[in-house]
């Protein structure tokens, strides 16, 4: 699974309001799934305290099968199993938040689920987007780019193979 495959892109054609909301939710869920529990706690400390909530399921760790497709469009195959932790919470006003995060950090899954529930509230959404999602997304992008630069520095170009392919 590469970072590219998980990046959320907005299709250029006109989309319904529901689809826009869904894309926005996909974006924050993906950012929260990669954010550490400490990072989220630090950012949330600057905001008013979160509402009380009830755990509907989890946080519980388990295995999921990651599936892939060759070339992005080939037949699906099982790539391998991965440890994930999932959590679902319901905040006092009734909104339900879900999170599935890689690894075994129960606190991360619980915070991500709580933030997902809070972000669905239109009254809170803008503030949370600016105070939590935007800084997290920025940090994640910076670290992704730093990794990509380090990898690019050791890149080997197989000129011979490329030449052989073009001459065939």
């Amino acid at each position, binding site marked *: 699974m590469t970072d590219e495959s998980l990046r959320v892109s907005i299709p250029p054609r006109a989309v319904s309001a529901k689809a826009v909301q869904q894309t926005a939710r996909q974006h924050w869920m993906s950012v929260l799934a990669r954010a550490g529990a400490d990072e989220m706690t630090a950012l949330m400390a600057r905001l008013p305290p979160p509402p009380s909530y009830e*755990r*509907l*399921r989890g946080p519980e760790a388990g295995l999921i099968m990651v599936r892939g497709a060759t070339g992005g469009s080939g037949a699906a195959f099982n790539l391998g199993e991965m440890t994930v932790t999932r959590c679902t919470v319901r905040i006092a006003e009734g909104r*339900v938040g879900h999170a599935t995060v890689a690894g075994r950090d129960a606190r991360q899954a619980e915070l991500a689920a709580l933030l997902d529930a809070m972000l669905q509230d239109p009254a809170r959404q803008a503030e949370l987007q600016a105070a939590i999602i935007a800084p997290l997304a920025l940090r994640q992008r910076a670290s992704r780019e730093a990794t990509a630069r380090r990898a690019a520095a050791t890149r080997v170009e197989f000129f011979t193979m490329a030449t052989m392919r073009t001459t065939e």
Partner: protein
Amino acid sequence: MSIELRGFADPVLESQACFRAVLNALARPGSLHRVGESLVPPVPLSCAAAAVLLTLVDGETTLFLPPAFFPARGWVSFHCGTVPLPRAADAGFVLDDRLPDLATLDAGSDESPDAAATVILQVAALGSGRRFCLSGPGLRVPVSLEVDGLPDDFASQWAANHALFPRGIDLLLCSGATLAALPRSVAVEA
């Protein structure tokens, strides 16, 4: 999808306890067991039926829900990780509050009688109502079971199911937080 209500507070221990109760209920037909007392299931599910679903149904089993249980569909899908099937005949587990026609359900094959369907039937009461006499494996002497909510001709319907042995449907009776079971091996007389 309504998932306002939680499942087991401690999924591992509570589902193991419920599984044990289901095994004991099947091993001693007609015995009554308490399950799911801590659950707050969605209407119209009873505590016992909800506990049995949480324990036995998962993404690798198949389930049929009749329209009467559609209000609980979201909860069942979420906590059991399964999407109910449109036809009872295809399902490994059939939940209902009225006895479905057992002949239309999957009774398994002689090579694989374990593939037969299990009916989780929500009845009005267990321990009161019409009295049935049970005999067969697991029962040294015949015992009686009182059920309120089975059809009048249940004994004859069950006789047809019992005659299929080793094939046949197993029946889990749930009422409130009480569970009893009628495995296909048990003979029932009215």
